[in-house]
């Protein structure tokens, strides 16, 4: 009983220890911490947008042409747009879409790409590999933005559909990344060792190979968060994606761009918001990379 407790205790300690170590590696680069803080702030403000945004109803069906195009002031910190809506409030709500896009796409894309890449990589030299990787190549042969646009053009432009579209063009990158790693990892001596011990294929693919792919996958995920959000912004820039009145960052920039430079705040602030959110995820990604690096 006592022994049990002691070991429990040490398990907790171990996790604490690992966590401390991870944090230590992560926080070595101050910029990563800045990235983390910004990401957390953005997520919080998106989740609690209703409380954070000064004019929550401006994110919905609302226009007030009497207050259109107001420059930044204490009433409207970032000014108002051509519809008389508070830009700050709309940016905060737009984070929702951006995050949904980023997270939604990655949640779908990463497991699919990873599993396909793992299987193809482990089965190198078989028909399964050929089929999987050639399919991947086909999807890879197009710039993501173009493929996403093509798909969006066929379907109704909604946030969900543009997420689907981005997913279709995004998974092959993970498949290829993981495939590359899996093909070299399957020759690693420890994989051979597990095979010789008699471990199952499932074990080898998911327990031996997969954990060693995780660091690059996570790193790519963090960086991709930014890219996906940018792609989403580019899609909404041409009018695909989130539909009005729901705010989307890309739409805000593209619409506001018409009024440059006189009404600069209409597009510059959302553009800065895009840059900040992407930058934050990039910084976070760098930190995650440091954290997951195996060097002591």
């Amino acid at each position, binding site marked *: 009983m006592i022994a049990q407790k002691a070991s429990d205790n040490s398990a907790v300690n171990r996790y604490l220890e690992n966590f401390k170590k991870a944090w230590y590696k992560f926080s070595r680069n101050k910029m990563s911490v800045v990235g983390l803080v910004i990401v957390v702030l953005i997520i919080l403000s998106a989740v609690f947008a209703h409380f954070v945004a000064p004019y929550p109803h401006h994110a919905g069906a609302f226009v007030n042409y009497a207050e259109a195009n107001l420059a930044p002031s204490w009433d409207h910190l970032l000014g108002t747009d051509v519809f008389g809506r508070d830009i700050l409030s709309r940016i905060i709500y737009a984070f929702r879409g951006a995050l949904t896009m980023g997270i939604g796409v990655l949640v779908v894309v990463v497991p699919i790409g990873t599993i396909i890449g793992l299987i193809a990589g482990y089965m190198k030299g078989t028909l399964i590999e050929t089929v999987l990787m*050639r*399919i991947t*190549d*086909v*999807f890879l*042969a*197009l*710039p*993501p*933005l*173009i*493929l996403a*646009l*093509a*798909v*969006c*053009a*066929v379907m109704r432009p909604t946030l969900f559909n543009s997420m689907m579209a981005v997913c279709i063009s995004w998974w092959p990158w993970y498949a290829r990344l993981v495939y590359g790693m899996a093909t070299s990892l399957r020759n690693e001596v420890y994989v051979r060792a597990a095979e010789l011990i008699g471990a199952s294929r499932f074990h080898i693919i998911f327990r031996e190979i997969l954990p060693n792919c995780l660091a690059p996958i996570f790193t790519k995920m963090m960086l991709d968060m*930014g890219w996906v959000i*940018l792609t989403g*912004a*580019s899609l909404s*820039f*041409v*009018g695909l994606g989130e539909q009005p009145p729901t705010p989307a960052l*890309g739409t805000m*920039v*593209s619409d506001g*761009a018409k009024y*440059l*430079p006189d009404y600069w705040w209409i*597009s510059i602030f959302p*553009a800065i918001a*895009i*840059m900040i959110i*992407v*930058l934050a995820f*990039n910084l976070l990604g760098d930190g995650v990379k440091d954290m997951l690096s195996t060097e002591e």
Partner: protein
Amino acid sequence: MGINLLKRIGLSIFVLFGLSILIFFISRVVPGDPARLALGPRAPEWAVENLRQEMHLDKPLYVQYALWLNGFVHGDLGKSLVTRRPVTTDIKEFLPATLEIVILSAIVLLVGGVFLGIISAKFTNTWLDGLIRIISYLGIVSPAFVWAIIFVLIFGYALPIFPTMERLSPGVTAPPTVTGMYTVDSLLAGDMSTFVDAFKHLVLPAIALAMGGMAQAARITRSSMLDNMGKDYIAAEKAYGIPEGLVFVKYLLKPSLIPTVSVASLDIAALFGNAFLVELIFNYPGFSRYGITAMLNKDLNAIAGVIMILGIIFVTINIIIDFIVAYLDPRIGLAGR
């Protein structure tokens, strides 16, 4: 070498074939009657019916595909609904315009990126390095359309040294068509002033387009240079008395370029994808804008044509880049990839 090239091409054809199936079926899911769309709502039914037959819309989908593929192989991509011309004609006209931008952009991307990367690595942890890193972060996190807008603002108003719209200035006539690229054609025609004008029109869109990739390339070059700096062979080369400057620009650079160039194929392919944003803003009649217009207007044949051409370009770029990488890195046999 020859065999590997053939193998690669064979594989690419397979990929393109897959792509054609994918794209053909995506483009046929579009709602609406393309023949009716082509002729307008008030066209007489018999003309529409004729067109429908001409477009093979009355046949089963797989037959349509076979016919389409046959046409594609023979350079016939059908007619565009928007421009009402054969898609091939459109592509011949628009593709060179975009190629011009993309090629310049790719050069800016690679040369600029590598240059910044080198400077940054050379002066690690100095203010210069810091500045370049901040710029690369900004480059990576800002979409091309933001850069384009910024450039139009700067050069449209404050500093009107570069034109911000179209391919040529008013009054300048296009050179006789050889390649379709105005810069090349004007040089071929020996018309320097047209060349200068055409080139000036390329500068801003190309740079706006290149910013993201350039930043990326700078970052990759920098980190791979720093990485390689710690390698034994660099120490060895220094120890053998080779001047550090030479070691840096020759012996360190070449291996460090490998990752940059490998990633470049993706970056350059992405240039085509992003080009439309820039073409939109600079009112540049390019291929990407054509493609997007086609997509937004559900112009089937144009969509399929554009995507196939992009696929071919992508695959070609990939092969070229693979060869460059193989040149940079003799360890990589081409069959390996």
